[in-house]
């Protein structure tokens, strides 16, 4: 099972800190579509996806062993 983590306004929008999900190997872009369908409250929100704690493009592959995180704009400091 893959873990999908939600932070900041995205945790607020989905009502979830994290969820676990069986994932066929797929691109980040595919997963993103899936999550937007599952959580329509994410629609229109600005976020990036970290895969195993790294940011990158939407062609990266994710699978069952991946830690995935949806990150809204940073506001540390």
């Amino acid at each position, binding site marked *: 099972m893959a873990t999908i983590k939600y932070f900041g*306004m995205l945790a607020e929008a989905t009502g979830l800190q994290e969820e676990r999900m069986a994932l066929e190997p797929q691109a980040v872009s595919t997963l993103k579509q899936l999550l937007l369908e599952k959580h329509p409250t994410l629609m229109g929100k600005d976020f990036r996806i970290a895969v195993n704690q790294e940011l990158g493009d939407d062609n990266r592959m994710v699978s069952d062993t991946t830690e995935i995180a949806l990150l809204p704009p940073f506001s540390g400091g």
Partner: protein
Amino acid sequence: MKKPKKVFIDGPISPEFVANSIQKHQSKTSIGAHSLFLGQIRADEVDGKVVKGIEYTAYEDMANKVFHEIREATFEKYELSCMHIYHSLGFVPTGENSLLVFVSAPHRTVVFEALAWLVQEIKDKAPVFGKEIFEDDSHQWKENV
């Protein structure tokens, strides 16, 4: 990889905490210059409502990795004796501090640029999220620009 240094602190970074950090450098007698940055919570007004504090959360595992990488990059880039980053988690009231960045070097020239660069890196790269809480307990999500 060395064990990442502890960055996150529960609640505000107190003046005493800063004093304690300064104190710890007094045995490092090759240091001639320190430069410190403190981020303080502003009582911003938005649509007539005043911010009473910011509630910070973070993707802690990733943030610790990012802080470690920033740390390594800083030492590559600048000739520093040492550097420290501390960031609050949880609620920090208006007027108190949520970020301390502390750089030290034998001579002063390098510390100013290193400090400015570091603060920018942290703002850009650390997955930390601030929720501005107003006096009526409504909130808005902060966004670094």
